């Protein structure tokens, strides 16, 4: 039990995907202008990450390792993630139009979100078993969501601040993210 907690806690705070591992920076800067959109994006990421962690793990163990095809890992994983995102999008549209309204626009963006592929590759590199992979995926997605929502909150306030025009937009958002990252470094002492 403690081991699973360590993976979960590590993925959320210590090795936060956005602020420490630098994965998923594009949506981190792109959709954090408002808190609402960042919550929508985070929800879609949680969903896709957990599904992707299960499917890529099964593919790695039962297809790639079984037939000695590990060198195809990058191609196989990105194709699986791309089709998974497409499939999830169609399924949600059919099953729950309300949820689709909420998540719809964010789903296609997730294919090129490197946090999903990065999480799948890390699961294999760390040689996690399936349960550990799922826990790692949940932790990674929660960590991503926390970073997104916190930065969106900061950026909404920054809109009102008086700033040199050269720092407006992405520049000041990155500097704010840097200070946020310093705060997350503090968690490293807890392990």
């Amino acid at each position, binding site marked *: 039990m403690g081991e699973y907690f360590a993976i979960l806690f590590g993925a959320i705070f210590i090795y936060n995907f956005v*602020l*420490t*591992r*630098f*994965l*998923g*920076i*594009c949506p981190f*800067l792109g959709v954090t202008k408002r808190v609402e959109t960042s919550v929508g994006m985070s929800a879609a990421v949680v969903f896709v990450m957990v599904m992707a962690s299960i499917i890529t793990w099964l593919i790695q163990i039962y297809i790639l390792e079984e037939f000695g095809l590990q*060198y*195809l*890992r*990058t*191609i196989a994983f*990105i*194709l699986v993630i*791309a*089709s998974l995102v497409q499939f999830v999008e169609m399924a949600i549209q059919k099953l729950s139009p309300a949820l689709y309204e909420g998540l719809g626009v964010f789903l296609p963006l997730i*294919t*090129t*979100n*490197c946090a999903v*592929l*990065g999480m799948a*590759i*890390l699961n294999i*590199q760390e040689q996690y078993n399936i349960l550990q992979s799922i826990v790692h995926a949940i932790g990674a997605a929660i960590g991503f969501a926390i970073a997104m929502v916190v930065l969106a909150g900061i950026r909404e306030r920054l809109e009102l601040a008086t700033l*040199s*025009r*050269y*720092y407006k937009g*992405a*520049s*000041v*958002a*990155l*500097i704010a*993210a*840097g*200070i946020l*990252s*310093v705060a997350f*470094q503090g968690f490293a002492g807890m392990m």
Partner: protein
Amino acid sequence: MSITKEFSKGIIKENPVLRLLLGLCPVLGVTTTAMNGLGMGLASTFVLLCSNIVVSLLRSVIPKKVRIPCFIVVIATFVTIVDMSMNAFLPDLHANLGLFIPLIVVNCMILGRAEAFASKNSLPYSISDGIGMGVGFTVALVLLGGMREILGAGAIFDYSFTPEAFEPFAVFASPAGAFIGLGFLLAGMNLLSKKLKLD
């Protein structure tokens, strides 16, 4: 539209990192030193150039509806080639760049150029666009890597030039330094493009 113009636009006017904000994950992730930045920049340039060539050659064959998966397969093939050759010939650099080598696949700059440029233009233009964008990406990585290496370790390309009394800013070697450094670089770029009247 001229070939030299397609080449030069990627370096300053449409610099993928500093102007278009594309492919920021490797930019932040690997730039602890100028050398890592250079290695990552060249690896990405190779993938971008090859994918631009293949996509441009196949642009009339690939059906519109499945173009994105097709582009991704092309890109992933070249990333696998880079991954394996770097592992064989430059194992130290490969270990430093780590996870970010397979992640070149999802670098939005490369998919972006395939979609916005190579799938619509003929081979010579696509080659020149690929090299120009790749050089612009590499320049940005080396700039940020150099800045972090000088401030965070007092060295450049592993050559230490600062006096003993210089105390490096540890924050620039840490993840936070990447965000802050890039933030200042972007502000500098905004200033420069204002002065050059690019907007």
